[in-house]
């Protein structure tokens, strides 16, 4: 990786205060194109808060965020999405009463024609767009789990956690984002399921060829397997950065996780 290359995404001095609580503390974080960056740290260290601030859900208290050559600090979540950043959520925010297809299409909002006339009057054109998008969605789901692709019009609430995670990732990927933020995708899954999911993510990255990922994880073997580099947070601060091997050996990191003096 060329060290002089422009980072795709860069947070500089990012800070977030909730009342008196410092959730993020002058955080500097960079991701380079096509990289997979792992974001790790003990519970409450600010990882999800970082995602929430980066995607505009919470306004930053200080600092800046640059993405793909533009300053996106304090953009609305809608604007962040349109600039090419997509995400999944720690608590799997899918619309359970809607179908798989519906959920994925929510993620494709910017590529769908939202005009009243198009949707209500020109039904032939709408049908074409609908059929095209159905194919796209189905193909994407097939990568993760072929049987699921035959159940596109079933309600999500009938599916187990691993399928829901897959659907959620499909929802984030359908719009062909440049940057994908994954928040603990393997939560609630067995070792095997996790391993399978990670394999699928790597496969998708191969296919899409222009995808950068930041992944929050607690399972260290996942981090070890798929990330190119890691950032460790503790109390909202970056305490270490490097490859997984480097980071795992760092005494500060060990102290943060295990409380070893």
């Amino acid at each position, binding site marked *: 990786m060329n060290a002089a290359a422009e980072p795709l995404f860069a947070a500089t001095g990012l800070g977030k205060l909730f009342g008196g609580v410092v959730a993020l503390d002058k955080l500097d974080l960079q991701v380079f194109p096509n990289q997979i960056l792992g974001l790790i740290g003990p519970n409450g260290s600010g990882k*999800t808060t970082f995602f*929430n601030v980066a995607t505009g*859900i919470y306004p930053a208290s200080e600092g800046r965020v640059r993405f793909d050559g533009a300053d996106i600090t304090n953009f609305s979540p809608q604007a962040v999405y349109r600039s090419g950043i997509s995400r999944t*959520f720690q*608590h799997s925010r899918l619309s359970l009463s809607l179908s798989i297809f519906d959920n994925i299409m929510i993620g494709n909002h910017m590529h769908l024609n939202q005009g009243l006339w198009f949707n209500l009057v020109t039904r032939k054109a709408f049908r074409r767009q609908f059929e095209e998008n159905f194919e796209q969605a189905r193909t994407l789901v097939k990568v993760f789990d072929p049987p699921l692709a035959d159940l596109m019009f079933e309600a999500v609430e009938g599916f187990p956690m691993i399928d829901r995670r897959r659907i959620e990732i499909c929802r984030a990927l359908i719009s062909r984002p440049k940057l994908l933020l994954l928040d603990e995708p393997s939560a609630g899954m067995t070792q095997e399921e996790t391993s399978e999911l990670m394999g699928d993510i790597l496969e998708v990255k191969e296919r899409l060829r222009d995808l950068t990922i930041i992944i929050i994880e607690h399972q260290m073997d996942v981090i070890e397997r798929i990330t190119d580099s890691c950032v460790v947070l503790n109390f909202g601060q970056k305490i270490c950065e490097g490859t997984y091997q480097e980071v795992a050996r760092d005494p500060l990191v060990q102290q943060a996780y295990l409380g070893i003096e």
Partner: protein
Amino acid sequence: MDGLGEQRIRLGYAQAERHVRPGTDPGRPGTGPAARWSTASSVEFRTRKAHSMDVGLFVQYVMNGLMLGVMYALVAVGFTLFFGVMNIINFSHGDVVMVGAFVGLATYLGVSSIGVENPWGQLAAAMIVAASAMALMGAAVAKYLVLPLKNAPPLNTLLITLMLGTALHEAVRLFYPRGANPQRFPSLLPTDAYSFGNFTLRIDSVILLGTGLLAIVGIHLLINRTKLGLAMRAVAQDEDTAKTMGIDFDRIVLITFAIGSALAAFTGILHGLYYSEVNFAMGLLLGVIGFSSAIVGGLGNIYGAIIGGFLFAALQTLGVVAMPFASAYKDVFAFGVIILIMAWRPTGLISEKISERV
């Protein structure tokens, strides 16, 4: 609602606009500032200049505004308790105030018919029976209507409590003897009054005001200085953690609802004593006012609720003063300002409890 019921509600609203008991002032048979506010008799007083206000009148307005504020604050605090403990809007609260007042009235009628003559005794009986009955009802509502809907969308709880409120006021209208008409509420407090120029200070008003304020202080102390209050606050903050700390979530919810409903009964009786009447529809407007006051102050925040309540009362009073010929618009005016405040500060003047985890 049948036509007769409609007539009565209209009268009820007109009555409510008179912030002094009708026709009981010695030597001041309804010509005071309060009478100006009644829609029914507005014609005669249009000739009065709007600006001729002396200190006495001003103090009267302030006094009435304070009394309204205390009542709205009490209702708003009730809403806050329910929202605080379960993040839900309990829209039956206003109607529980009304039912509490009716239970108090019925108790008074009951004990006075069996020979209890002492007004303090009657008042005590009314208070105790109403508060206990409402507390029980509140706990039952929590157990059978609210807790079962814990995992449903919050809209459902709002709807179910709204419908409960409707059922309550319809039940009173249909099944209480002549329930569609306003009922006279007895004057159980001493009726001495002292005149200072244009202003009449009634002892019972002072007592009501004082008791209302005491109740608010009491709730504040309960929430902040007792172990129960601590448990309530813990549950409000983070249900899961509170449970792991050994707090029985369901029990706390039941207790909160019981306390809130008892407070409602107390407020209802206060309302009855102040206006000398109760009617089946009084809970509706009170509920909406209390709810908006709680929101404007910042839902989940007791101080916000109190401030909101007094703010609403102040706005209503301002509305009456500014437009003495169109006092019915005072509610429209007050709500209008409240809506604008909500638009300006969506999380409330103090701030709403942030309940959502992303």
